[in-house]
């Protein structure tokens, strides 16, 4: 990146100063091409933040992830969905490096994660935040200490600076007056929010959420979904969410990856999922009659055949 900046700086300076004559024409053209290439290349990398290339992962004889290729985009909520045992969690654990893929490559912003040394991975991991299914908060620490922990470990800030940042992120996840409480003293929804606060305290570039709504009531689930979506846009990060929750799929699924028996079965957006003809996907997403009816209704709405502000009394007749 530094080379790109240097080239841009050099190119701009020569143009602005009108000293272009000092540079030979072919050299100037080459430099121009290089700057354009670098700019295109860098923007390409920023758009395609995480690339999964032909990942294969097995345990013993059983192949759990079979040749999965996908792209997780920046500023969007990338959802991995699928039935239990379809390989969602294993794929996510491969993405964050908790499992080593047998074959294939994982690329973070153009850098191959699979080829990185342990030290390089440690550096990259400081740009990763993760919300675990069970929140994974440290039991012996208060909410404040939990959120402050990454700052303690990776910054040399003074205590007031760290406390200011902790209060900022706790405020961002709408959690006030809980600083001195222990994880055992707060509700499941609050634990998830503390988990999110801890994940974003170091301003990560990537956020991973493993079943963020598990064990939560529908209303709290919506709050957590909304929060994840807002944070993704606000911080312009690449968010990967592993979920079973159909509300999440419809609410925040900018890019959805449907896994079936370890393979990528379908990929698209929450708008496209309604019109998908994929039978496996449909039987998974719209499993109940109620959801099937809701889908039909949404399809008609989107096609403009039903007024969004329909009178429910008329419909009941």
């Amino acid at each position, binding site marked *: 990146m530094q080379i790109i900046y240097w080239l841009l700086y050099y190119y701009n300076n020569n143009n602005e100063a009108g000293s272009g004559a000092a540079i030979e024409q072919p050299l100037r053209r080459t430099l121009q091409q290089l700057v354009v290439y670098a700019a295109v290349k860098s923007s390409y990398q920023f758009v395609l933040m995480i690339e999964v290339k032909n990942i294969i992962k097995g345990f013993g004889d059983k192949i759990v992830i079979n040749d999965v290729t996908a792209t997780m985009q920046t500023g969007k909520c990338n959802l991995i969905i699928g039935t239990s045992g379809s390989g969602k969690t294993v794929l996510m654990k491969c993405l964050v490096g908790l499992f080593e893929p047998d074959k294939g490559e994982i690329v973070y912003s153009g850098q191959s994660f699979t080829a990185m040394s342990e030290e390089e991975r440690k*550096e990259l991991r400081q740009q990763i935040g993760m919300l675990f299914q069970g929140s*994974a908060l440290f039991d012996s620490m208060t909410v404040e200490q939990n959120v402050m922990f990454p700052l303690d*470990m990776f910054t040399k800030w003074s205590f007031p600076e760290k406390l200011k940042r902790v209060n900022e992120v706790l405020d961002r996840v709408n959690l006030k007056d809980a600083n001195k409480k222990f994880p055992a003293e707060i509700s499941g929804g609050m634990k998830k929010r503390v988990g999110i606060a801890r994940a974003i305290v170091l301003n990560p570039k990537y956020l991973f959420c493993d079943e963020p709504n598990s064990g939560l009531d529908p209303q709290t689930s919506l709050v957590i979904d909304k929060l994840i979506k807002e944070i993704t846009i606000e911080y312009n990060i690449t968010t990967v969410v592993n979920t079973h929750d159909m509300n999440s799929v419809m609410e925040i699924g900018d890019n959805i990856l449907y896994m079936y028996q370890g393979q990528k079965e379908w990929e698209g957006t929450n708008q496209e999922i309604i019109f998908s003809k994929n039978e496996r996907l449909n039987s998974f997403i719209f499993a109940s009659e109620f959801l099937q009816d809701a889908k039909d209704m949404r399809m008609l709405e989107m096609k403009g055949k039903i007024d969004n502000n329909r009178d429910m009394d008329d419909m009941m007749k």
Partner: protein
Amino acid sequence: MTFFTELGRYLLMIKGMFSKPENMKVYWKEFMHQCNDIGIGSLGIVVIISVFMGAVSAVQTAYQLVSPVIPKSTIAQIVRDTVILEFAPTLVCIVLAGVVGSKIASELGNMRVSEQIDALEIMGINTKAYLIMPKVAAALVVIPMLVVISGVLGIWGGRLAGVASGILSAAEYDKGLLASFFAYNVFFALTKAYTFAFIISSIPAYYGYYVKGGALEIGRSSTKSVVVSCVLILFADYILAALLL
């Protein structure tokens, strides 16, 4: 899993502990916290065991020394050497294997099962260095201190019991304590203490760190870690005695 696979994984865990700390201040804080947990947390039981251990050995030695030819101060010599050579390091460390070992194994096991270790890994922290190294280092610092305290209290317990039960006088006991004292015995006791401290901290850490499953497995690994630690302590006790005495 074969013995050699487990041994290899244990050695790799030990190797993994030695890496540059991400933040020395946080590691130091954790080290001090562990020193407090292992040292202060076990002090009570060590004091109780040591006093009674010395008292019982004084009474039982007196019971076996029936010959009038042997001076009573010999009881103090026997109590001193038994406590320093065997009781203080070995018995106390076996008790500590239960107290400290089960705590380490269950703490790490719980962290593993509740994904707290994964959370640390993803933050970019070397979990072996952050979670295991301070425990092992704290054990190496604190357990020899506990052994020294145990030795002193054991000898004092013997004196207390000897005088209280009228077996021998305080003066006779003190005379016996000073007779034929070899400083090498203290060195031997401390060598054992350091060896056992490493076993007490690293074996349960291994079983806790690599636990798989749920609450039941945490309990099992905790029990297994205590059993393995105790067996290894006795084995190391014999090896050290054979090599150093």
